[in-house]
């Protein structure tokens, strides 16, 4: 029992001190009909080396972005992670600590969260940010509920250009509280139709949700939508699934967003087959008290030394219980720390250069596809690092299957979420895709048409 220090003998001594003959007596309060009369039916224990072999065998069955060149994005992005990130985040003082309830011995975590909150404000152009939500999709759902708390209205305008899984999560959260989601179509630019937004807005509209870059990689006209929303007394909730775009794209805050949520996975977090990821959540000071999630504030001790604490917890479940702004307790702290370290490493110039590199490589790939026989770029709007390609002959599934043979993981097949785009692929290009890889992709797809 390498994880259980106390030996039989140690336990014996303790049982004597407690004054019982065996540990059985300590479980006497569990009615025997509620006891398990047999051993658990689980595999026998593995030695550490046996475990390592077993886990390596499982992991070995999966593809990884080191052994394949991948063009998948769609809410999970393959960016290079500098070595320093894991060296720092996996300092055990960080990852074996609990939520920083005791500030005197949690200043490392607390100062880091304060820095994280600042970075998210700087990136989003908002005034305040919380310590994290579960992921981008649940952050969006919480934003929708928050808008409802703020203005009591019931309708949510939800463009189809928002990540389909995010829309699904919003639906799952919202309908319990009687909110209604109204879908908005996208245009041939691959962006949300402003006219339709205006048409759909009404005194019932609690908020307009916009994702930008949206699920098709296209950039939305936030300013105009903000104006329209505000005109109708509704809030603008902006979702950003690929936050590297913050490095080169005007911030939602500047465009008039009231709440900005996002997925922070791109910031140094691994793909992890879908999780854990990082829910970004920022808003304006005015809405501070309706905001969900933890907040860290700066203050001082009796000697005037600066320190950081969890604050404004009267919004939270452990104080407010059923009246809380959310039920969230454990959040994604370590992912937020990861983002903080990652952004510190890239910094002011690095993040911009990274975003520019993604933009340029994607433009290069887009140009190539616009010339590639058998394919066309489906939407005309400006994009960041993703775009939609239509395959005129073969089905996306056939194309992808052909690519796998060349150890290329192609784009996401849009038919799954958009019947009308059953002939389309969503391709993502990051700094991790070299020009050779992009050319190889085109060549392979050209062959596969």
């Amino acid at each position, binding site marked *: 029992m390498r994880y259980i220090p106390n030996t039989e003998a140690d336990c014996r001594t303790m049982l004597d001190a407690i004054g019982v003959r065996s540990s059985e007596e300590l479980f006497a309060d569990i009615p025997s009909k509620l006891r398990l009369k047999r051993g658990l039916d689980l595999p026998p224990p593995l030695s550490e080396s046996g475990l390592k072999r077993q886990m390596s065998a499982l992991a070995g069955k999966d593809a990884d972005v080191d052994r394949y060149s991948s063009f998948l994005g769609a809410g999970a992005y393959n960016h290079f992670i500098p070595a320093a990130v894991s060296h720092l985040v996996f300092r055990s003082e960080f990852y074996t600590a609990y939520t920083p309830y005791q500030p005197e011995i949690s200043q490392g975590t607390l100062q880091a969260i304060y820095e994280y909150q600042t970075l998210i404000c700087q990136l989003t152009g908002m005034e305040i940010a919380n310590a994290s939500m579960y992921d981008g999709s649940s952050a969006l759902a919480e934003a929708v509920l928050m808008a409802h708390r703020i203005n009591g209205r019931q309708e949510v305008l939800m463009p189809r250009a928002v990540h389909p899984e995010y829309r699904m999560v919003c639906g*799952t959260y919202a309908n319990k509280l009687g909110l209604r989601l109204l879908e908005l179509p996208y245009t041939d630019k691959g962006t949300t139709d402003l006219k339709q937004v205006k048409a759909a807005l009404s005194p019932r509209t609690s908020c307009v949700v916009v994702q930008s870059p949206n699920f098709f990689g296209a950039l939305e006209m936030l300013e105009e939508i903000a104006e329209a929303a505000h005109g109708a007394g509704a809030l603008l909730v902006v979702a950003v699934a690929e936050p590297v775009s913050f490095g080169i794209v005007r911030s939602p805050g500047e465009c008039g967003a009231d709440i900005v949520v996002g997925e922070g996975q791109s910031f140094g977090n691994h793909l992890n087959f879908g999780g854990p990821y990082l829910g970004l959540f920022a808003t304006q000071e005015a809405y501070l008290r309706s905001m969900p999630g933890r907040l860290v504030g700066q203050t001082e001790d009796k000697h005037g030394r600066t320190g950081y604490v969890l604050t404004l917890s009267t919004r939270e479940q452990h104080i407010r219980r059923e009246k809380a702004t959310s039920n969230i307790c454990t959040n994604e702290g370590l992912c937020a720390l990861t983002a903080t370290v990652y952004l510190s490493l890239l910094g002011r110039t690095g993040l911009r250069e990274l975003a520019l590199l993604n933009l340029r490589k994607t433009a290069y790939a887009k140009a190539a596809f616009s010339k590639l026989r058998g394919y066309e770029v489906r939407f005309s709007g400006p994009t960041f690092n993703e775009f939609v390609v239509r395959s005129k002959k073969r089905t996306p599934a056939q194309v992808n299957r052909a690519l796998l043979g060349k150890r290329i993981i192609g784009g996401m097949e849009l038919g799954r979420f958009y019947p009308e785009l059953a002939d389309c692929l969503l391709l993502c290009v990051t700094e991790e895709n070299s020009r050779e890889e992009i050319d190889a992709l085109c060549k392979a797809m050209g062959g596969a048409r």
Partner: protein
Amino acid sequence: MKDETIGIQGLAFHEPLLFDQGSKGRTACSLPESDVPEVKPERLLPKKLLRHDIPGFPELSEVEVVRHFTRMSQWNYGVDLGFYPLGSCTMKYNPKINEDVWRLPGFSRAHPYQPESLAQGALQLMFELEQYLAEVSGMERVSLQPAAGAHGELLGMMLIRAYLESKGNPRKRVLVPDSAHGTNPASSALCGYQVVQIKSGPKGCVEPHAVAEAMDEDVAAIMVTNPNTLGLFEEHIAEIAKIVHGKGGQVYCDGANLNAIMGISRPGDTGIDVLQFNLHKTFSVPHGGGGPGAGPVGLKAHLAPFMPVPVVERKGDRFVLNHNLPSSVGKVRAFYGNFAALVRAYAYIRSLGPSGLRRVAEVAVINANYLMSQLKGHYHLPYDKFCKHECVFSDARQIPHDVHTLDIAKRLMDYGFHPPTIYFPLIVRGALMIEPTETESKETLDQFIAAMKKIAEEAEREPELVRSAPHKTKISRLDEVKAARQPNLRWKVKTSEPERSSSS
């Protein structure tokens, strides 16, 4: 370890904010040269969508970043540094091998949308983990999607709601004992239910008559925590379940405290319909300073049709994701769950096996009762009976000396320990909720007991020493009122001095 206290003082390092360091143009990253044409951004994006700079953003070299976070890490207390008896949080040791295996490229570098044929390892792991958790809890299916315990609670209540809706009426209220964790009522509310509080009985357990009184056809469910937040097993759980079921309600179990009964009693066998696991408690996933964790939800067959999508299924020797569940509640987050946490829990279960998991529960309970038996004489014990994973004391005996739970907690730091959970559960005034877990040695418990006794003495002899604690930490108690009254939630570019980095 003689009688030196573990808590001493040593050299630490002042470290300013990221934003108050560095200098213009520094960076710790080196990006590859662009291998594509270096087109001007203006030619790729409309001007009005372009951003030119992020004033005040950090500008640091690698060594500066490394020192920043290395120094800050040393201001933290973690399980790897010492005893962390935070009640209800099960701060057990996090095995190092688990931190290596989740990082295997096939797990950490796998994309959620990569073809199922290229994700068979990940899917198999999820499929088997579901089976393991079902077996441990006595439930029939498990959803691995929720990111944390509260998230699991929410999903659990959603399942109940969907089930009741399918029966024609979602109902209005949920019964929650007064000893419950705050997330229970909050999750119910988030699911559209009114919360009705049930008073715990004199022996710290929920009493059947209290449930019977509150139970009617408008009550959707009861949320019980078992073992509960007093560290006690809800003895009447079966009877309570019968009462609730009798009126067509469902029984939710907050399974955060499963650590005490693994292999000994299974919630599924006690009448529970739904429960959440906290993998970051019971199954050794590190808490990460506030997450990420994972809060899978176990459920009985009648709730299976409503599970969130996708679910992992086995087709012959292949594993597939089934997105097609017509009556599914939908999704509570994107993709499949906190996979990296699932990997750790899987590794933990495979390391311990059936005998090991049972041993975990036994030793966790022995440790808790040993602590209780040794501290009894020195601190007020509101519910004096054998406990399970934790024991709850109060400051009743110290209050006469104007020494309060908070003071005791802070003073423990000087002795080198993390304080217990304090002022929770709410039904105990000034609660000190102590959960040692099975990964602590008798010697460590004895050191902690000695410290607690010493503090009880100090409370009588030199109360001011306790009231002004901690004395050895980098900072002393912080002004929380100021923090809340004048919220300072972010660094701002000083308007006085021209903003550092944007100069030039």
